[in-house]
């Protein structure tokens, strides 16, 4: 990934690394360039002085041209001293192999010889002309060394900066990582604001905005719930009036419109059931954590079965109970009862006359399981996933129901951390089995 991509993906750590690296590189280059130039100038001044001294002091008795160079002397460091007499004859050349032509101009000059650049100083006396030359490369080497020395600390600083920035960033971002884990694990109903302590100051405004958003969302959700609850509530009064009027009507018009008033009464009853289930669901959505009371599941199952025994009897449905263990849990008895009741209610609704409903309490592998299985139609394909949806009814149209029972059941199960499944039977019978699985830890 190149630097531009790093900046584009907006990784703080990546961006910091790129910026610091670029900065340090620029500083290093600038320092190095400055050191090069200064060192070059200083070396030039110093070495030029030496060239001049050598030229002025090269006497008649300069050592013979063929004197060997000192063993440890770098050939580059050797001066090339050439002396011409007044007739212009070369009388001395310290490096005979190097022929630097006599410069036309006195003083400092540059020349080229033997494939090298030379710095030349020429002086002329009454009897002779002395020219001293030194390779330019010497000066460049000095300047390069200086440049390298200047750049070295910066070069070392770059990887160190990476380490330090990486470490510091990790430390700062660790809190953000914890924060994101917290947010990811938040339940949808959680309304507490995000804790701001330990969050880097630069990120705090962002977290605060998020908190504001959470509060606004909470208010909006709250308003929504309140609306459903208020609406259901407000419907009770006109429904009560309708209920009374329908009863008065059926009393006064006895015989004449019996069919119509019965249908009307059924409609009112159905609307009433819908409204009270809506209210029930809204109340479940509204309240926070489930209460923590001891719940005697067996008693609640028995009561729910009893509540539906008369209806089952009228429908000629054989309702049976089999108790295999004593099940208890912690939670809200009212809610658990509503859950069980809605499962049994569904079973009674969907079982055709002559059918059979088996309610059982068991304890297979550590959990309590309440099972309500009935004979009758299977859930149509695709309906298994949708049975918990509000107002979804897998029913034949003549089956009366609000379509909210299983939504209520699921909400209660969620609040109590129960498992709840409704699926087609696989034990050879056709029909549906609803299963509540209750953790045993009390």
């Amino acid at each position, binding site marked *: 990934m190149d630097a531009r991509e790093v900046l584009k993906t907006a990784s703080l750590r990546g961006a910091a690394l790129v910026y610091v690296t670029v900065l340090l590189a620029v500083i290093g280059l600038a320092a190095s360039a400055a050191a090069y130039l200064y060192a070059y100038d200083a070396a030039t001044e110093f070495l030029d002085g030496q060239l001049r001294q050598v030229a002025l002091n090269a006497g008649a008795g300069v050592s013979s041209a063929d004197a060997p160079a000192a063993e440890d002397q770098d050939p580059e460091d050797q001066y090339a001293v050439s002396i011409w007499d007044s007739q212009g004859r070369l009388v001395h050349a310290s490096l005979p192999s190097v022929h630097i032509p006599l410069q036309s101009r006195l003083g400092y000059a540059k020349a080229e010889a033997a494939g090298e650049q030379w710095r030349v100083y020429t002086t002329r006396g009454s009897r002779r002309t002395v020219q001293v030359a030194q390779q330019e490369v010497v000066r460049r080497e000095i300047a390069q060394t200086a440049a390298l020395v200047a750049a070295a600390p910066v070069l070392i600083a770059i990887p160190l900066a990476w380490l330090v920035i990486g470490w510091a960033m990790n430390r700062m971002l660790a809190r953000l990582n914890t924060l994101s884990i917290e947010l990811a694990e938040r339940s949808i109903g959680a309304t507490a604001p995000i804790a701001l302590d330990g969050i880097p100051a630069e990120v705090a405004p962002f977290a605060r905005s998020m908190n504001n958003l959470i509060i606004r969302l909470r208010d909006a959700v709250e308003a929504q719930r309140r609306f459903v609850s208020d609406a259901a509530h407000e419907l009770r009064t006109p429904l*009560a009036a309708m209920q009374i009027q329908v009863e008065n009507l059926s009393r006064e018009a006895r015989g004449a419109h019996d069919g119509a008033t019965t249908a009307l009464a059924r409609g009112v009853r159905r609307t009433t059931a819908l409204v009270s289930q809506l209210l029930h669901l809204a109340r479940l959505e509204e309240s926070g954590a489930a209460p923590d009371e001891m719940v005697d599941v067996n008693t609640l199952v028995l009561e729910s079965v009893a509540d539906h025994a008369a209806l089952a009897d009228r429908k000629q449905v054989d309702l049976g109970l089999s108790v295999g263990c004593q099940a208890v849990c912690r939670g809200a008895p009212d809610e658990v009862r509503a859950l069980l009741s809605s499962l049994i209610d569904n079973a009674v609704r969907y079982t055709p006359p002559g059918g059979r409903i088996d309610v059982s309490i068991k304890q297979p592998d550590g959990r309590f399981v309440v099972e309500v299985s009935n004979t009758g139609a299977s859930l149509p394909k695709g309906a298994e996933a949708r049975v918990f949806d509000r107002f979804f009814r897998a029913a034949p149209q003549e089956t009366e129901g609000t379509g909210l029972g299983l939504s209520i059941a699921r909400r209660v199960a969620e609040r109590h951390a129960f498992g709840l499944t409704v699926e087609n039977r696989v034990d050879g019978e056709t029909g549906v089995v609803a299963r509540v699985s209750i953790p045993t830890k009390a």
Partner: protein
Amino acid sequence: MRVLLVEDDVMIGEGLAAALGAEGMSVDWVRDGAAAEAVLHDQGFAIVLLDLGLPGMDGLELLKLARGRSVDTPILVITARGAVEDRVSGLDLGADDYLLKPFEIRELTARMRALIRRRAGRATSKLVAGDIELDAETHELRHGDAEAVLSAREYALMHALIERPGRILSRTQLEERIYGWGEEVESNAVDVLIHSVRRKFGKTMILNVRGAGWMLAKS
């Protein structure tokens, strides 16, 4: 029987007045708390039906006021407020019963009668569940049109069932209620008793829940 109805909703007020009138009651209907307060002291009312959401003075306030002035007419609260807290505070403030709107007239009149009876301190020897009536003195059982005097064991069985209509009693629970300590109980004794009661009153009076026991329907 005079009934004070405190209800601000016209449709409900008119409807209730007509329905209760048809039941032979005479209904005085007021539509706000202040008017109700003015007539509360009238000793002639057998019962007060009180709506909670009233203009002017709230129903709960009126309730408090009435009980503060030691008005001891039975008060039946009829309201659309269904929250548990409302119910509890209503009963705490001295309501005798609480009925959530919407309700069936049948339910309302049954509760009104029960309250009036309770206030009158009239003990009744009759146990009732739905259309089943058991006379504790004569051991007579009535169910719809059928009527018969029960044997001691049959009576014990029906008494156990009718005491808590809507609740399932297991074979063991019934045996405990029917037979004395140390009495030898045949394994099918309960079935035999139930069979004999059903033969007189029809199969549907006593409901059977397979694996759990027997019960009477609540209403």
